[in-house]
């Protein structure tokens, strides 16, 4: 009886230990949502992208997002065509945008412990052929073997050479600054 009890105890202890969160080398996410939102007195414009890929390396704090531009879906077909064309995102020449960044306060984030952490992320945002430095706060939620990243920030389109000068109609409809909302769920790889 004693033997059974002690082996049971050992089994439970082992099980608990093996379920403890372990930091992974690298997390990969292909379950992502990037929302583009622009508000003007005339109209709100929204586009959604569910096809981006992202990685996080806990040991270095490296965060990368790769965003296929043609995957932004607008409610109106015409808006989507304008968004892609040569005056705006020029998506057939620059099919992807990239954000390559590092977590600045890496020591405040424990990837081995479940919880919600505020992360300050700084890096290079490349849209078309223009690259700018971006520094924003986001939330990293650690839950067992997966991570969730969420962030909301503004982008000034003129910083990427998107000025609307060539198309009056869309110029009046998309604000100069757009709000980007990011959510990504990562699994360890």
């Amino acid at each position, binding site marked *: 009886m004693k033997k059974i009890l002690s082996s049971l105890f050992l089994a439970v202890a082992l099980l608990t230990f093996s379920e403890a969160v372990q930091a992974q080398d690298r997390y990969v996410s292909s379950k992502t949502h990037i929302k583009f939102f622009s508000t003007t007195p005339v109209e709100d414009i929204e586009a959604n992208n569910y096809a981006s890929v992202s990685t996080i390396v806990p040991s270095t704090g490296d965060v990368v997002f790769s965003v296929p531009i043609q995957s932004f879906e607008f409610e*109106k077909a015409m808006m989507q065509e304008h968004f892609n064309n040569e005056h705006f995102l020029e998506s*057939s020449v620059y099919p*992807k945008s990239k954000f390559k960044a590092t977590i600045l306060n890496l020591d405040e984030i424990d990837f081995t412990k479940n919880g919600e952490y505020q992360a300050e992320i700084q890096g290079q945002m490349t849209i078309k052929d223009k690259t700018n430095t971006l520094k924003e706060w986001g939330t990293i939620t650690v839950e067992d073997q997966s991570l969730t990243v969420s962030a909301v920030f503004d982008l000034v389109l003129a910083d990427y050479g998107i000025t609307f000068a060539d198309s009056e109609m869309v110029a009046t409809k998309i604000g100069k600054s757009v709000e980007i909302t990011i959510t990504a769920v990562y699994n360890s790889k």
Partner: protein
Amino acid sequence: MKKRKVFRIIAIIGIAGLLVGGGIGLYMFNKPHRDVQSAQADYVLTSSQIVAEYLTDYQAANQKYLAADGNSKILEISGEVSEISENFNGQKVVLLYGVKDRAGVSAIFTAETNDNLNGIKVGRKITVKGVIRSGASYDEDLEMYENVILEKSDIVKEENN
């Protein structure tokens, strides 16, 4: 009297022009998205073929498949199902991946076509049709190969096995 008549004709033509112009403008503004599934496929190929094409010459493949207005080529791609998942929009995502390939084709279905994947299991050979959004390439920052992305996909053929 004659002057008045001329004025009236001009006014009628003007108003008619405005109505037609406005109508066309409104139609353009509200025109629906292209119906990918009812359109004919531009290219028919295997997942291994398109991946190889992209990994050989990324620029050339982009020129061939991507359109400036985002209405890129409609492809019919066959391959072996290696994974079925769901994205944040509730759409099923099927990954077609050749055993010897370094990247695959990620086909995103729609609310309307999701159910057509019922019963499709990993290992099954299927053919999907969808619009290409981006190609396959090795990304040195991600340190991984990215898949070809197809959207508005549906299954057009399944092999019995």
